[in-house]
């Protein structure tokens, strides 16, 4: 493996540097959205539909308005007109999309649909009044269930005479059918994934402040990308962009749920403008589980052809997604992304696909950590199904199909171009670390004693830093202040990602200054340059890349000026620990801070033509995608008397290129794995057949705890990417790979009983039911 060229004085990149954000967060001095308090601030809450689908017959506000402390209550007909309609529009040719408005108007389309906004002196009073808003509903037939939606006689939306939101397929391909016909085995299976919720520990929320005089909307947002929020509010509220300012400070997690601003947030901003006062809305957990956007809820059928040795000859994949009523992305996205990424880490030539998304009267789908990950779920579980069917070891079948270094560059059947990846290496590394052979022996011994142990593997290639529109470019302003201290200004939206540390590591290395002398300022559109925020595993690659570019540019100026002052060539200088020295003559040096002071205060000492000051802004446009790769392997024990699953060991082999901070990389992986464990074993936002959500408290929506996530071990492979720092993204992989690894482990444990596992979550009752079904079959 080639090693990346690191700057000569690299001290911070690659090191487990402790986080700069920690002291404030550990002492209770973070600034989350609910910590924002403005003079005259009012509090909002929403009246929400208890029904999935109904006509709104009448709304009576009289009693609610009489509650002391209530300032205003508006329903859709009173407030929606203040904003552009639709709020977002992802209709395309043959793909309808509902008219999205801040509040429901005329009818409601999911349980939790906001019907009215209540503004009051405090949240307690607002909730008192919300209870008294009297809404008369005429129930309609709700469309519920991904597999029932298309044929339902009900309609999820007025004005859209179908529940099919998107449907497409690859052209018929005789070569594909021929490949299947020539295959030694063709195996078909359908895999299902239940509805999840992202569940950031901090729910949604904002403080919107319409400043009358300045005609400016200031929004304190719990967001992943302030600049796109600014565009959004400017557009829907008809404001010039420079009269909108979005500020995000500490954000308590997002995982995709906080990428786009939602209907409720829009209503709050509209209310603030009407009242000319700051309005705060803090979503409570019940609202978050019921009405913030959900995720997953999809299934995929795979038809896989293999030759006698288990080498894949052809795959056909068809995907069905329930996107709910108001998806926070185009309806095609879950399916299209999953189908496009499906070929993953394996070599095969023939591929066909079909996808369909349906609207239902449930909360809309949004991005959630690896929103395409159904491809890994289906493909990796299928690899084990095939392996078992044809009698090949599951590690071996992957070895026979995985892309090798000598295959690179490699183009997938869907046109993705891989280079600088190492899926074969991460597969082997993970298997070795878990002790594959040893486990198989242990498993055999356990089986002899009537205990059921299993091992599951999941291998995948993760497209990171997908560069499209605003997310493909990032800017960094690196500013050495007159004292020599450094501010880095970026348009990122770190919300747990440690960018205040990692970006500073990158810059401090390039400028040769102590890490304490550098600070990242992000999250304020009035301060930072336009950027794409933090999502899609983009920050290390794109933000890290541009931080480096901008710092290098500034370093050149620093050296040029220092060379001029020291009467030496810039090329002969080095910067270390805040001092610039002529290489080989330690006596000839100048402090970084002195160079900075001169740059600002002493123009007469600058070289001819040099602009005073020390500041550089760069923009970097990233390649379409940067590929990370990984294999997760875990082991488990299943109690066949109770159906309980216990994870025993967990290993992740990962190649995310050059690691800026391995501690942060491992943290990202671990968090994703835990979410995958939740999805595989615990989490399920179930609806009953009328569209009533059944898990809207933390007593019912089960997040994994310390007892559910085992100790995770990591093996790092570092194959640099072709982006400036050699980094690849690592934000989503943990969540992408985990469910399949766990499902495979459980299936492996239960293989002697003839159980095939194709759906989640693997709750004890479902595990036992699967065992019973297999026994009676």
């Amino acid at each position, binding site marked *: 493996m080639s090693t990346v060229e690191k700057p000569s004085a690299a001290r911070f990149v690659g090191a487990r540097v402790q986080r700069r954000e920690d002291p404030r967060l550990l002492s209770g001095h973070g600034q989350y959205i609910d910590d924002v308090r403005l003079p005259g601030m009012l509090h909002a809450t929403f009246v929400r539909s208890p029904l999935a689908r109904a006509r709104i017959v009448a709304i009576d506000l009289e009693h609610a308005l009489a509650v002391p402390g209530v300032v205003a209550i508006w329903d859709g007909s009173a407030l929606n007109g203040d904003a552009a309609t639709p709020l977002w529009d992802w209709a395309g040719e043959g793909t309808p999309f509902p008219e999205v408005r801040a509040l429901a108007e005329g009818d409601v389309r999911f349980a939790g649909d906001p019907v009215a906004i209540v503004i009051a002196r405090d949240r*307690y009073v607002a*909730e008192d009044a919300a209870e008294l808003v009297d809404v008369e509903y005429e129930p309609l037939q709700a469309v519920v269930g991904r597999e029932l939606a298309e044929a339902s006689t009900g309609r999820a939306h007025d004005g859209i005479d179908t529940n099919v939101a998107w449907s497409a397929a690859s052209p018929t391909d005789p070569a594909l059918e021929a490949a299947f016909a020539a295959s030694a085995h063709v195996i078909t299976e359908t895999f299902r994934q239940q509805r999840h919720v992202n569940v950031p520990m901090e729910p949604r929320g904002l403080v919107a402040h319409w400043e009358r005089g300045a005609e400016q909307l200031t929004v304190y947002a719990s967001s992943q990308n302030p600049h796109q929020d600014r565009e959004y509010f400017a557009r829907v509220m008809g404001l010039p962009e420079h009269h909108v300012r979005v500020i995000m400070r500490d954000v308590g997690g997002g995982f995709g749920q906080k990428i786009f601003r939602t209907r409720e947030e829009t209503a709050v901003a509209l209310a603030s403008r009407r009242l000319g006062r700051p309005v705060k809305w803090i979503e409570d957990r019940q609202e978050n589980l019921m009405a913030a956007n959900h995720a997953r809820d999809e299934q995929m059928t795979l038809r896989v052809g293999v030759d006698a040795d288990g080498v894949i000859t052809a795959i056909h994949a068809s995907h069905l997604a329930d996107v709910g009523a108001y998806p926070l992305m185009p309806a095609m996205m879950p399916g299209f992304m999953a189908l496009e990424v499906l070929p993953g880490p394996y070599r095969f030539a023939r591929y066909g696909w079909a996808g369909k998304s349906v609207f239902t009267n449930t909360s809309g789908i949004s991005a959630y950590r690896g929103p395409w990950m159904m491809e890994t779920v289906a493909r990796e579980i299928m690899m084990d199904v095939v392996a078992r069917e044809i009698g090949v070891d599951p590690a071996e079948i992957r070895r026979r199909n995985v892309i090798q270094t000598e295959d690179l560059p490699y183009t997938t059947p869907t046109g993705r171009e891989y280079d600088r990846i190492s899926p074969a290496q991460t597969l082997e590394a993970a298997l070795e670390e878990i002790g594959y052979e040893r486990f198989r022996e242990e498993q055999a011994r356990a089986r002899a004693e009537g205990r059921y142990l299993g091992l599951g593997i999941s291998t995948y290639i993760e497209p990171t830093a997908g560069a499209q529109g605003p997310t493909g470019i990032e800017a960094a302003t690196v500013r050495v202040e007159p004292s020599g201290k450094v501010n880095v200004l970026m348009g990122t939206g770190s919300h747990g990602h440690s960018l205040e540390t990692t970006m500073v590591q990158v810059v401090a290395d390039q400028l040769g200054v102590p890490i304490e002398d550098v600070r990242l300022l992000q999250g304020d559109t009035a301060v930072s340059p336009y950027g794409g925020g933090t999502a899609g595993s983009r920050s290390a690659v794109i933000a890290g890349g541009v931080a480096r570019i901008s710092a290098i540019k500034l370093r050149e100026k620093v050296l040029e000026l220092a060379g001029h002052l020291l009467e030496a060539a810039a090329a002969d200088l080095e910067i270390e620990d805040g001092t610039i020295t002529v290489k080989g003559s330690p006596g000839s040096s100048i402090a970084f801070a002195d160079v900075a002071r001169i740059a600002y205060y002493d123009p007469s000492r600058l070289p001819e033509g040099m602009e005073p000051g020390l500041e550089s802004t760069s923009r970097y446009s990233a390649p379409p995608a940067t590929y990370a790769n990984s294999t997760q392997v875990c082991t488990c024990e299943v109690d066949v008397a109770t159906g*309980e699953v216990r994870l025993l060991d967990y290993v992740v082999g990962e190649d995310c290129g050059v690691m800026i901070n391995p501690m942060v990389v491992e943290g990202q992986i671990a968090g994703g794995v835990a979410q995958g464990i939740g999805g595989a074993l615990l989490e399920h936002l*179930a609806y009953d057949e009328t569209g009533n959500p059944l898990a809207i408290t933390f007593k019912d929506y089960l997040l994994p*705890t310390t007892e559910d996530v085992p100790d995770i071990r990591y093996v790092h492979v570092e194959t640099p990417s072709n982006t400036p720092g050699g980094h690849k993204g690592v934000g989503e992989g943990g969540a992408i790979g985990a469910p399949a690894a766990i499902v495979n482990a459980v299936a492996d444990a239960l293989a002697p009983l003839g159980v095939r596992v194709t759906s989640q979550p693997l*709750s*004890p009752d479902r595990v*036992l039911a699967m065992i019973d079904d297999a026994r009676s079959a």
Partner: protein
Amino acid sequence: MKAAPFDYAAPTEVDEALALLDEFAEDAKVLAGGQSLVPLLALRMSRFDQLVDVNRIEALRGIELVGETLVIGAMTRQATIERDEEVRRHAPLLAEATRYIGHFQIRNRGTIGGSIAHADPTAEYPAIALTLGAEVEVASVRGRRRIDAGELLESAYTTTLEPEELLLSVRVPVWGARSGFAVHEIARRTGDFALVGGAAAVTLDEADAVARAHVVLFGVADRAIRLSSLEAAIAGQPVDQLDLAELAREATAELRPPSDVQATGAYRRRVAAPLTERLLRTAFVRARRAGDPTEEAAR
């Protein structure tokens, strides 16, 4: 998620509390540890005009052995019970079961009186009260009475307490020599309410035959239930000759447990049998050990 308004009083004497409960009757609610009541209020699933906070009534706290009965004040915290030496010695089942309740932060506030009065069908304490044959002492302005746990637990979240009655204490009989106990449950996660749980208390005679047995399951009906037919079937039988698996299967075959998002009723019934078997097995082993003088000394 904010509670609806209420008035609040925090009496320091039992009589004051009883007077308030009498005055407000259905509109009043006792606030103990708040670990069940406060979430219900916050979610606005319950509302009351008057909360009577009994946390400041010293007389409701404490653990005392009175003759052959362990008397535990209603406001004794679960955390106190978990650590208490008297409880460990005289009602080890209660101590053992306490660890299954939520998490230590919950147990720092939650009380035994609150747990039992709340009558959650999947909660541990009501089931343990039933298993050990405990009584509760309750009072109203009209006087005091004792209610057997079996009569107290009526249905899900419902007891035979009158709204103006206050639970004062839980009276747990001490089981004699050669007694053994077991508690076990299956839950989705550590600290969650049980999907299915159970407890057993047995006493063996000198010949290792069953002198007394109480076997209780929770999570399988609208309240904790005793498996009376099983208890009758094993009474007087030598332990070694019992086909526990078969007995457990028979005793649980007629159960019709409820379904919810966490598990189906069929699942609950299915695992009730192995659970019951396991409880009895463990209780018998412990009962024998409790009678073994060398083991006693070792403890």
